[in-house]
């Protein structure tokens, strides 16, 4: 049984937040970190508390880098039992995930690549006003603890239209949903069976049928997860210019946008709606994932093999899919760019967390292979059109009859502006870290 009252809610529940704030924290001495943590544990939501009590207006999550665990006083012999990729941190492994060139950690903002980054406090709020209230409260709390400080922060807000989540390019977001075995969640049709809890939470059986060894002590690791944080700037002006270059009519542009993503901007998947958008399908969670590739679209005539969703979740066309699943949380930051406005140079994008039990097997695999392997599925010279490391030298092939269309030299629609690996401890572990016995 999942210990829902000990697991932080973050990967278990999608909260109805329209605003958020990430605060990146540093502790100059262990006592400062422990004092800060001790005062915040009671505000952290659990899998049991979130969504059952009276409607919440804010949801708090806290997580730590490996340097942060050390800064809180975890001893070296325990620190050594954490997996190598977590100990090294994302910046040291940037090449593996494709954070090179313009995406290199040297260019990241907010000091997240620094060894001084120790913790993150993630606030999801019902709206911007509630976020401001909590921000002020936390600033007051933090100012009372000498030795604890804010390295940087990021405010996030949903962008209109508000009926459902979108990102800045205009695509409907949050269409995939992972059901975890042992929770009340049911898998959506087409999404495959529920995933064993050990793929996301430490201390449980995973899809290998076994329970991997835990970092020590178990009080610290049990019910924990790893989070990969990515701040991804979206170059909306570049994206819209590209669509205009590739398509002379609105319909042609929308089709190109759909071929890049694998879904229409409404969310309707190309496998089920190959020639014409179907917004009702995009919004229907019982049907919008109900498709496969191997049987329904093996050659990619509907959904190109190199499109974003077919790379990020190849469904029936990859091995060991149950061991490669990821839970994504996060939202958009920066002001939306009005439809007819030219690029204004303001940074906007997605800042998200990818949750899993093994960063190297799940997150880094997805980035290294699915996203950035130019020869994924024998494509030869392609990378994920949105998340891949693009520098104008990679293509996207759109299979078509009688002759395929090749988009040559895709521009970078996004740039990684920050990233880090965090450990998301359970509540008992937070108490252990805070020195509460």
């Amino acid at each position, binding site marked *: 049984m999942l210990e829902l009252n000990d697991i932080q809610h973050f990967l278990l529940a999608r909260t109805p937040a329209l605003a958020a704030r990430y605060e990146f924290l540093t502790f100059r001495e262990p006592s400062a970190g422990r004092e800060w943590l001790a005062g915040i544990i009671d505000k952290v939501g659990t899998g049991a508390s979130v969504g059952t009590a009276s409607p919440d207006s804010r949801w708090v999550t806290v997580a730590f880098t490996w340097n942060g665990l050390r800064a809180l006083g975890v001893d070296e012999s325990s620190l050594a039992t954490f997996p190598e990729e977590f100990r090294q941190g994302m910046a040291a492994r940037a*090449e593996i995930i494709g954070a090179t060139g313009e995406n290199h950690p040297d260019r990241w903002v907010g000091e997240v690549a620094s060894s001084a980054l120790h913790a993150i406090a993630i606030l999801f709020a019902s709206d911007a006003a509630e976020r401001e209230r909590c921000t002020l409260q936390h600033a007051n709390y933090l100012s009372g603890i000498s030795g604890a400080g804010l390295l940087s922060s990021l405010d996030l807000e949903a962008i209109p239209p508000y009926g459902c989540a979108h990102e800045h390019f205009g695509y409907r977001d949050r269409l995939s949903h992972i059901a975890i075995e042992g929770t009340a969640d049911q898998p959506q049709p087409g999404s495959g069976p529920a995933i064993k809890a050990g793929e996301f939470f430490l201390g449980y059986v995973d899809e290998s049928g076994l329970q*991997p060894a835990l970092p020590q002590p178990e009080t610290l690791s049990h019910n924990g997860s790893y989070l990969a944080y990515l701040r991804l700037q979206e170059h909306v002006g570049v994206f819209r210019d590209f669509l205009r270059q590739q398509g002379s009519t609105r319909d042609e542009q929308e089709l190109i946008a759909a071929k890049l993503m694998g879904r229409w901007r409404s969310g309707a998947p190309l496998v089920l709606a190959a020639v014409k958008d179907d917004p009702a399908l995009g919004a229907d969670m019982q049907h919008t994932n109900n498709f496969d590739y191997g049987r329904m679209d093996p050659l990619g005539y509907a959904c190109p093999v190199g499109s974003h969703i077919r790379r990020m979740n190849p469904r029936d066309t990859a*091995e060991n899919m149950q061991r490669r699943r990821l839970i994504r949380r996060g939202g958009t930051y920066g002001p939306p760019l009005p439809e007819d406005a030219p690029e204004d140079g303001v940074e906007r994008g997605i800042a998200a967390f990818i949750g899993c039990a093994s960063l*190297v*097997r799940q997150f880094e*695999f997805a980035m290294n292979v699915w996203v950035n392997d130019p020869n994924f599925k024998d494509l030869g010279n392609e990378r994920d059109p949105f998340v891949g490391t693009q520098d104008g030298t990679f293509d996207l092939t759109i299979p078509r009859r009688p002759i395929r269309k090749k988009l040559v030299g895709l521009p970078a629609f996004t740039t990684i502006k920050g990233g880090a690996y965090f450990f998301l401890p359970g509540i008992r572990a937070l108490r252990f870290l805070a020195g509460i016995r």
Partner: protein
Amino acid sequence: MKDKDWTKPEAMAIPKEGYFTLEKGRYGPTYPRTPACHGFTIIAKIKPGTEEEIRNHGKRLEEAVKGSPEVLAPLQLHYLRWVLFDIGSDKYFMYQGIFDTDFDKYTEDAVALFTQTGINTIFEKLEGFPEDWKTNAPAFIKFVREHQWPSFLEYGEYPYVTAGEIKKALRLKKAFSEMLDQMQ
């Protein structure tokens, strides 16, 4: 890679470390694709008295592939060569595989398949193989990497051609001959 000329045989001398420039993969340096594709040569001492069991496993794998010809497909192999040989009074096992994927990329899939097909039982007979490999894929992978000896020369008579491309060409040839036969 797509533009490599398969009609021109090619040899590649490889530096001692096994790569030309260090490119970090998830589990260590990645090795280049050569005219003889990707591959590895793993050499490890076997535990005393296990030779017979290892040899018997050859038969078991033969039967597994006979029963289910696609069983090793995810490894994208061209060839496997398993060899037992002596150094002094010790017995060593060599596992040489030629395949089309970068081992670092699909390494966990390979480990899963080794388990499925029982290839792991051979690894268990090797000295130094981690006992907790079932729940510790990184340790399994570390063992493989520590026992991998990079080639210093690789040659391809038809360089850089994948198994998929060869099979496609042979299918085409077969279809073409059948067509010619039917036109008689």
